[in-house]
Each structure stands twice: as C-alpha cells, then as structure tokens.
C-alpha cells in the first residue's frame, strides 16, 4: 500500500512538472500576464506605463494621492486599472494642461477600472472612446466645486459596446455625471450621482438598463436623449428600481442658469426624469420623489429644435415614442425650486402650471402634474389628428398624474390648452398588457 502511494505520488509529480514546465500555472481568465504596482510619487513612471502598456496588464495603484496632468491608454486589450478603494487611491487631475479629459481610453477591448477616486480635471474625468467590454466599478469621479468651471462628464463611455458601470459615485459635473453616449448595450447600476447638472444621461444608446441607482440633488436626475446627426440611434432603455429624488439644484452648465438650446442646458432645475426624442423606453418601479418642477418630462426634438424634422434619418427620429411608464412612486413638493424661475424651460413649466390652474379653477391651484408630455406627436409629420399616435403608455396611481402641455401653441396664449386628460395615454387604451 505504501509502495502504491509512493508510486502514485511520484507519477503525479512527474505529470505536474511536465505540465508546469510547458504552460506555467493555469491562470483564470480574469487574471493578467503582467502586473505593475505603483505608489504615490511615481506619477511619471505611471504615465509611461500607461503609454507603453501591453496586452493583458494589470496596473495596481497603491493607497495615496497621485497628481497627474492626464493619462491615456490606446489600442491594447485586457487592461485593468486597480486601486485600493475610492477612499484610499486618489488620482488628482487639477494639473491638467491639455486635452479633453483626465483619463482617456481609446480602442481598448476588455478594460476594467476599479477602486479609486478620480477628481478635478479641466475637461471630462474618464472618457472611454470606441472600446468594448468595459467595466467601471467602485469608481468615484468628482469635482470639488459644482460650478461651470467643472468638466462636463465624470464617467463618459462613447461609441462603445458592452459597458457596465456599477457602484460608482459622481459629483460636480457641469454636464452629466454618468454619460453613456452612442453605445450599444450598457448597464448602470448601484451608482449614485449628486450635484451634477444631470445625474445620469443615456444618449443615442441602445439596450441600456439603469437600475438600483440613486440620483439626487442634481439639476435633473436621469435623462434619456436621442440627438440628430450622430452615429447611431438609441432606444430600448429600461430604468427601474431607482431612487431619483430632490433634483432641484440650479443649472450650472455654462449659460445653463437660463438654458442653452441644447443638451443639459435645457434641463430645468427640479427635473426627475427627462425623455427627449427617444423611443422604446420603459420607466417602472422607481421612487421619483420631490423633484419639484417635473417628475417625468416626455419631449420631442421639436421642443428644442424647430428644424428637428429636417434631421430625420435612420439614426434619428425627433418624436418620443413607445414610452411605457408604470408603477413608479411619485411625489412632488409644494412649489417650484427657486432656480427654475430663472431657467428658460423652468419658466415654461411654471407657465404650464399657471395656465392649467387658470383654465380650470376646479384644480384649486394644484401643482403641475407629475408627468409633462410636450404633446408634439407624429401627427405633425403625418398631418393626422390621432389621439396617441406614438404609443405613450402610462399606468400610474393617483390623480394629477399627467399633462399634455400643448407645446405647439405655447407662444399663442389664446390657443394654448394644456390638457390633463390621461385617458388616451393610459395603458388600457394603448392596449399594453402589464
């Protein structure tokens, strides 16, 4: 028996040796061929390591504060940038002297950034361009000051495929904290965003799921936009189980206090969710509380661009359609937030409330309804008068849920009739099962 054991042992040893001699220890898929470890003070070496990085590299940044101008990674695969936690590994980009962002990742497949804080760049903080299979996790991306000197986007994947953003926090972006642009397949979950102009924005992005997040104290909590003249169309976006509350912050995008005609400059302080020119959107099981200008806005491209109709093509359709809003818990505070009075769209929302209460004294000066639809439907393209041609479907408890704000007559007060009749838009009518 002893003999047999010894033989077996010897045998397995030989086999093991021969295995290892050839291939080395088998590594799990998510491990990397090269690991480089750095500590604060080695910024120059780190910048060089980023530039000369090879496929399958893990860069570990030990605890401490690092000062960078900017960092970039391009045209490599299987890269992981690992910190020791958002409260331990801090990358400060206030020295940024050129370029558009603190960290830039271009043409990379399988990129992960995990466990650090990046802060105070002049441009965007983390831009990931034309890449795929991206994981952004346990990342805090913040500007110390929430004003127009902050960069635009904290976490900014664009023209990508397969993006996961989770357990992140963004603050102070003068545009959107988390901004997913022109991307296919994205998940944003368990993130927080506060004191940005927009907490999170999904733009011209298809197949996105946004869930279990908290967007609060921004100008606007969550945006789904499609814009014209871009590389792809968005759509098929679901947002659920999010907590979107108290987004009443002044719009501090450059010239945003009054509102530019584009992008988040358009977002009125006090906006919970804004859907602009997007299609196939489902918003459900969210808590949308205390966003005091409009809990949910559904608007067409015509609301911000009179020439939106000329820009229709395979990648753009200005009318919001197939919008399904159901089972959200929604409340609003007693009054518009002060900054809304100074904002172009904020003033419109205030006027809608006033007009509704003027036309219908029975409302007894109620707040603007939770869901504001601009009422610009594809009827203006088809010259028809269908009641709900674009499948806007709403199933929400309570009264004062909905207003069709009749934007087409906005400038002509005599004919302006905002209308709270939800019937054509209730899911039973639309025939949506739920």
């Amino acid at each position, binding site marked *: 028996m002893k003999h047999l054991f010894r033989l077996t042992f010897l*045998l397995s040893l*030989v*086999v093991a040796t021969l295995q290892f*001699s050839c291939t080395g220890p088998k590594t799990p898929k998510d491990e990397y061929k090269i690991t480089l470890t750095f500590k604060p003070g080695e910024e120059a070496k780190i910048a060089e390591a980023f530039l000369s990085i090879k496929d399958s590299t893990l860069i570990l940044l030990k605890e401490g504060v690092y000062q960078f101008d900017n960092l970039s990674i391009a045209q490599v695969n299987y890269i992981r940038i690992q910190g020791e936690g958002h409260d331990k590994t801090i990358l400060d980009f206030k020295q940024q*002297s050129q370029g558009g962002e603190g960290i830039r990742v271009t043409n990379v497949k399988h990129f992960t950034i995990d466990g650090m804080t990046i802060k105070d760049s002049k441009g965007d903080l983390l831009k990931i361009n034309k890449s795929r299979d991206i994981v952004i996790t346990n990342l805090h991306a913040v500007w110390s000051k929430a004003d127009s000197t902050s*960069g635009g986007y904290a976490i900014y994947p664009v023209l990508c495929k397969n993006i996961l953003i989770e357990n992140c926090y963004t603050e102070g972006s003068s*545009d959107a904290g988390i901004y997913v*642009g022109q991307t296919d397949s994205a998940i944003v979950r368990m993130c927080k965003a506060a004191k940005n102009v927009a907490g999170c924005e999904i733009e011209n992005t298809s197949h996105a799921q946004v869930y279990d997040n908290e967007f609060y104290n921004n100008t606007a909590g969550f945006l789904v936009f499609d814009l014209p003249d871009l590389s792809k169309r968005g759509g098929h976006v679901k947002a659920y189980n999010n907590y979107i509350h108290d987004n009443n912050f002044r719009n501090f995008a450059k010239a945003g206090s009054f509102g*530019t005609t*584009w992008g988040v400059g358009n977002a009125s302080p006090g906006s919970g969710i804004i859907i602009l020119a997007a299609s196939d959107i489902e918003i459900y099981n969210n808590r949308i509380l205390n966003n005091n200008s409009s809990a949910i806005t559904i608007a067409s491209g015509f609301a911000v661009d009179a020439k939106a109709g000329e820009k229709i093509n395979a990648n753009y359709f200005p009318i919001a359609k197939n919008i399904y809003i159901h089972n959200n818990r929604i409340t609003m505070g007693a009054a518009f937030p002060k900054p809304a009075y100074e904002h172009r769209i904020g003033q419109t929302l205030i006027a809608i409330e006033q007009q509704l209460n003027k036309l219908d004294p029975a409302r007894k000066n109620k707040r603007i309804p939770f869901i504001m639809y601009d009422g610009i439907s594809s009827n203006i393209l088809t010259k028809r008068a269908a009641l709900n041609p674009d499948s806007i479907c709403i199933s929400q408890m309570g009264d004062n849920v909905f207003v069709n704000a009749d934007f087409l007559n906005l400038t002509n007060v005599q004919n302006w009739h905002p209308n709270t009749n939800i019937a054509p838009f209730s899911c039973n009518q639309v025939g949506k099962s739920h």
Partner: protein
Amino acid sequence: MRKTYIFSSLLLFAVILSVVSGQGCKNKSTENTRQSAKEDFQFKEKLSEYGFFKDKLNTLNPRDGVLGYELSTPLFTDYAVKKRFIVLPKGKVIKYNATGVLDFPDSTMIIKNFAYINTAHQQILIETRLLVRDPKDKSWKVMNYLWNKEQTEAVRHITGGKVPITLLDNDNQKLFTNYQVPNTNDCKRCHIKDDILIPIGPKARNLNFTVSGEKENQLLAWARKGILTGLPAICTVVKLPNWADSKHYSLTQRARAYLDVNCAHCHTKGGDAYNTGLFLEYEQTNPDHLGMKKTPVSAGGGAGGLDYDVIPGNAAHSILFYRLNSTEPGTAMPELARTVIHKEGVKLIRQWINSLAKKP
C-alpha cells in the same frame, strides 16, 4: 507484483510523455524566438542613428534618398517651423491615391521636425516625429524624439511633455508658452481613423503645388524621379487650397482647407471626434455636419454657453470660432498640439463665418 508492473509502466509512459512534450516546449520556444526576431519594427534610441541627415544633425541636411516635401496647407502647431521628409526603402515607390493618403510602401519613414523661432531669430529644434510603416504587419507606428538644448541630438521620448519656450510669431511678436510635446497616445489620437493608424499630411491634393523656390510641381517632380507611380494628368488631380493664398483662392476655399487640415483628422466619420457629428472635411457638403446651426453634442462647458457650432454671419456667437480662439484645456480646439492662439487662422475663420449668408 502486478501492481508494481502497472505503475512502472505508467511511470515510464509519463516520462516518455514528459520528454515528448519537453520537445514540444523546445519547439515552441524556438518558434517564439524566431517570432521575436521578426517582431515589430524597433525604433532607434537616437535620431542620429538613422543617418537621415549629413553634416551637423540640426541642419537637417538630407542625405541622398531622404526626400523633403511641403504641404499646401499645414497644421498649425504654435507657430512651429516644420521640415518634412520621406525615406522610401531602396527600389520601392509610392503609389498614387486620388483620395486620402498616398499609398506608401512597407518600411517607409516619414520624418517631421518641429522648430520654433527664438528671440534671436534662430530656429531651435524641439522635437522630431517619425511615422514608420512596419513591414511585419503593414501598420504605421509612431515615435517621438526630443532635441537636447545643445541641438546636437534628439532622443527617443514616449511620454511627451512641456517645453517652456519664448517664440516669435509671424509678426515677430514674442510669445511665451509651454510647448506641448505629444506622447505616443496623443499621436494616435489624431492619426487613428477607423481604428487604424495612418499618416495625415501627405495626401495628393495637399502635395499638389509648386513649392516656393522650385520650378516643378511637387507631385510631377516625384513622378519624374520615379518614386511616384500612377499619377494621372496633373490637371485632373485635386488641389487643396493654400489657406494663406488669397490671390488664388476664395475666402471659403481657404477657410475650408484650414478646417480640413487642422480639424478633420478627428472631425470625420471614424475619427477621434466621430461622436460629435461635426465633420469638417474639405469635401463635406452636409450643412448639419459642417456645424451650421448645429447644436453641440458633448461639448459641455467647452461650448462657452453658446448654442450653435456655426451661426452663419455671426462668428462671435459660433462655438467653432470660440474654441479656436481659446487656449483653455477643455475648451481649446484642436485639443492637442496648440497652446497659443493662431491669430491668422482665427481671423480667417472669423471672416469666413461672418461672410456666410444669414438664413432665417
């Protein structure tokens, strides 16, 4: 006994297996070495090692086979004076290409030297950039060489950096700036299109002119020397206007040529600024893509609170003008390779935008 026999056989088998696969390993490792022998093209440590220039290195006096060339409209880089050369492998020729960059043979090297004019009116070299077409995979590779203070050598440098300089601009005005030497990823930003790194400058249309002091059109001269094949009748080759030549070209032609060369390597479909939808190629005709009353996509604060990329007739409120007229990171365009304002370029673009017909 039988058991011992079985296990001995197994042991023997294992040993044989080990030897065989050891052999396998050996084969593999020779293969690896062989592969690494024809690994990527390796850039040399010092510029002098290539032997591009005779006499003193900083005279940039080309040896035979190192071919100088100029561009009709060049990229602006902080008033830098640029000297460009091409080195073709022996016996190889460039093939004409009507659109885009000429078709250079494997192992072509493109050399671009950047100097500034100091207050004593001397040319001081800052950096030399190389683009090499690697014969191994036919891909272009970039490297940068940084000149020493003594101007005797330039050394391989991948991390970029800032060089404080006091330069004279075209009006002999003194400008102090931190010249930005690009790092190798910065190079890629402008040079990558559709995920492939390519040269930008040497397109037929931007070479199609007679360099001042020469008698012959540059492309014709190359064809005559036998280094360019496939050149059609020169009158059929498109010319990119010289942005500074108001005698021969209209304001619009010059402005569009300037935007093409300074912006369109990124602002094009498949370029680094593909996401913006602002496309500034010379051939672009779609007014939306040209920015006419186009709202920005992701400019953020870089737009300066303005509404449109270009408002015809109103440069002062056009984002395009605003960003060309800035040196602030996050606002300034181009994002790279420019730290001072190009007064002459900004003036051209202002005039052009203001000349555009206002539409209702």
